C-alpha cells in the first residue's frame, strides 16, 4: 500500500468570521463548528478555545487529541467507521494539518485525567504543549449516562477534526512524505538480504474509558489481525480512552505513530518493514491467551525476523505484553518491547506488574510515578474541580499557592508507550 501524506504547516489559529486556511493560518468560525457537535442530541452545548505554545494556559481534563486530516485521493475517507464509510483506507493521498491539534476536554467522570500545560515545567513533558491547540469543551444534557457521554464526545471530536481537515482540500502542501509497504512476495524479492521486521501494536480494550476502535469496531472483540501501517494514518484506529493519561494513546498518536515513522525511515535501507499487527488487552485471562497465541502465530506465518512491541496502559496490559513477548520470542522472532514504568516515587520499585527473561530488550518511556510541581497558570480550559481525584494526585495536590503536586501520570502522553514523549533511559 502506498500513501502520500501532504503536510500543511499551521503557524497560527485565530477565531474569525470565515473558516479557512490561508498562508498557514487556520481561521475558525466557532459557529460553523457548533452544529457539527450539536447534531448529537446528547450534547447540550460546546465551547471552543485556543491554546498556543508558551501561553500561561492549562487544559484539563483532556479526553482525546486529534490531528485534522482530509483524504484527497484513494479509497475511503478519514476516520472510517465513524465519519466515513468502512472502505479500506491507507492508500492514495491525505493532507494533514501539522503543528496543530484538536483537543477534546471537559469532565466525563470525576476522576478523569489529562493535563496539558502550554508553559512551565509541565510543558516539557507533553508533546501537546508544542502544538497550537483548538480546544473543544462539551456539556452533556441532564442525567446522561457516563457511557453515552463518552461516546458522544469521542464521536464529536472526529466530526469536528474532519470538518477542519476539509478546509485543507485544494491547498498545496508544504511537504510531502510517501509511505509504502509491499506485498509479502514483492518484499522478499525486492529486499532479499534485509531482515523482515514487523510492528505489533497492543490496543487498550477493557471497558468504559479504556477502549480503542478499529474501523468502528470495539477492538476487544477482534482477534489479532494484520493492517498496513498507513491505515492508522487515515484514522482507522481511534482512541476511546482517557484514564491514565500519561500512557494512553490519543488518536493523534495513532495517526502519527513514532514506531511506524522510524520503521519506515529504515525501510529498504536496513530492514524490510513488512506490516503492522494489531492485538488487544482484554480483562479476561483466556482472551489474553488467545490473542497472544494468535499474535505469535501471525509473526511466525509472516516469517518475521524481528518485531517492535508496544503496549498501552498499566498493570493488566503488562501481562499481555509479557505473554506476547514470550510467545513471539519462542517462535524465533526477536522482540523489543516499548513500555513505561511505575517504579514508585523514588524509582526503586519493580517497574512492571509482570516480567520474563524473554523480555531482554526494553525501551522505557519514563517513570509515571515521578513527582512534579506544576505552578499555577493564568488560565484553565476545562476545570480544576477534579484535580485532587485523579491518579497521580492526592488530597494535597492543589496547594495553597495554586500550584499542583502531581505524579507524571496526570500529564497527557508524558510516558507514552509508543515513544511519542521525550523521556527515556540508557
Amino acid at each position, binding site marked *: 500500500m502506498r500513501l502520500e501524506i501532504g503536510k500543511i504547516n499551521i503557524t497560527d489559529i485565530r477565531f474569525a468570521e470565515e473558516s479557512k486556511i490561508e498562508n498557514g493560518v487556520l481561521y475558525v468560525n466557532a459557529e460553523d463548528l457548533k452544529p457539527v457537535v450539536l447534531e448529537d442530541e446528547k450534547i447540550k452545548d460546546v465551547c471552543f478555545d485556543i491554546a498556543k505554545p508558551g501561553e500561561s494556559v492549562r487544559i484539563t481534563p483532556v479526553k482525546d487529541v486529534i490531528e485534522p486530516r482530509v483524504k484527497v485521493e484513494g479509497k475511503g475517507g478519514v476516520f472510517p467507521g465513524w465519519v466515513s464509510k468502512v472502505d479500506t483506507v491507507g492508500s492514495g493521498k491525505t493532507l494533514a494539518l501539522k503543528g496543530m491539534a484538536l483537543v477534546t476536554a471537559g469532565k466525563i*467522570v470525576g476522576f478523569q485525567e489529562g493535563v496539558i500545560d502550554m508553559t512551565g515545567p509541565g510543558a516539557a513533558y507533553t508533546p501537546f504543549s508544542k502544538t497550537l491547540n483548538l480546544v473543544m469543551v462539551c456539556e452533556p444534557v441532564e442525567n446522561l449516562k*457516563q457511557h453515552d457521554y463518552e461516546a458522544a464526545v469521542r464521536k464529536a471530536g472526529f466530526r469536528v477534526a474532519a470538518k477542519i481537515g476539509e478546509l485543507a482540500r485544494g491547498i498545496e502542501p508544504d511537504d510531502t512524505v510517501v509511505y509504502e509497504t509491499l506485498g509479502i512476495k514483492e518484499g522478499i524479492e525486492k529486499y532479499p538480504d534485509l531482515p523482515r521486521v514487523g510492528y505489533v501494536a497492543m490496543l487498550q480494550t477493557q471497558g468504559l474509558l*479504556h477502549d480503542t476502535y478499529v474501523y468502528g469496531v470495539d477492538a476487544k472483540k477482534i482477534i489479532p489481525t494484520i493492517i498496513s501501517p498507513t491505515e492508522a494514518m487515515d484514522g482507522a484506529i481511534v482512541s476511546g480512552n482517557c484514564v491514565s493519561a500519561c500512557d494512553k494513546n490519543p488518536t493523534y498518536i495513532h495517526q502519527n505513530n513514532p514506531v511506524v515513522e522510524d520503521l519506515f525511515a529504515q525501510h529498504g535501507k536496513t530492514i524490510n518493514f513488512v506490516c503492522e499487527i494489531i492485538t488487544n488487552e482484554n*480483562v479476561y*485471562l483466556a482472551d489474553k491467551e488467545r490473542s497472544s497465541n494468535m499474535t505469535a502465530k501471525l509473526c511466525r506465518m509472516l516469517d518475521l525476523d524481528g518485531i517492535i512491541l508496544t503496549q498501552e496502559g498499566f498493570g493488566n496490559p503488562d501481562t499481555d505484553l509479557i505473554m506476547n513477548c514470550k510467545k513471539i520470542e519462542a517462535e524465533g522472532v526477536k522482540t523489543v518491547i516499548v513500555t513505561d514504568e511505575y517504579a514508585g*516515587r523514588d524509582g526503586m520499585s519493580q517497574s512492571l506488574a509482570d516480567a520474563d527473561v524473554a523480555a531482554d530488550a526494553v525501551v522505557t518511556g519514563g517513570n509515571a510515578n515521578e513527582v512534579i510541581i506544576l505552578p499555577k497558570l493564568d488560565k484553565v480550559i476545562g476545570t480544576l474541580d477534579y484535580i485532587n*481525584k485523579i*491518579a497521580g494526585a492526592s*488530597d494535597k495536590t492543589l496547594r495553597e499557592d495554586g500550584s499542583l503536586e502531581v505524579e507524571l*501520570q496526570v500529564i497527557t502522553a508524558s510516558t507514552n508507550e509508543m515513544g511519542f514523549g521525550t523521556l527515556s533511559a540508557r
Partner: protein
Amino acid sequence: MLFVFLARSILSFYRKQLSMKYFILTNNSLAAEEFAQTHDVRFVNGGLEDVFIRARDLIHEGAILLVHPLYGSVKPNETPFRSLLLREGTTGSNDGCIKPDPESVRLIGNAISTSRKFIVKKEITDPRLIQDFQVVDLSLLKSAVESADR
C-alpha cells in the same frame, strides 16, 4: 406450547449452569446488584485490598482466577472498587492436598504488592465520584463476564 415451555426451561437451566461455573467476588454494590439474579455473587464488605486478600485466600483453597486483578487503568490507590471472576476450586491433587493454581497465585501476589506501591491513599466521600468509580468498575467487569459467558 409444552415444547416451548420445556425448551425455555432447559435453556434457562443451561444458562444458569454456565454462569455457575464461576463466581463474582466484589466490593462494588452496583456490580453485586447487576449480577445478583443471574450469577453467583460473593460480596466483600471492605476495600479494594480486602477483595485481593479474600481472592488470595480462595486461590490458596483451590480457586482459579479468570481475570487480571489489576484490570483497568484506574490505580489501586484511587478506586475503592474491584470485582474479580474466579472459578471454584478444582486444583486438588490425588493425595487430598490442595495444589493452588501457580498462575493465579502469581497474579494475585503481584497485584497485592503493586497496589501497596501506590502509597498515597485517597479518602472518597463525594457520592457522584463514588458512583463514577462503581460504573467504570462495572463496565470492566461486564467485559469479562461477556467473555466468560460466551
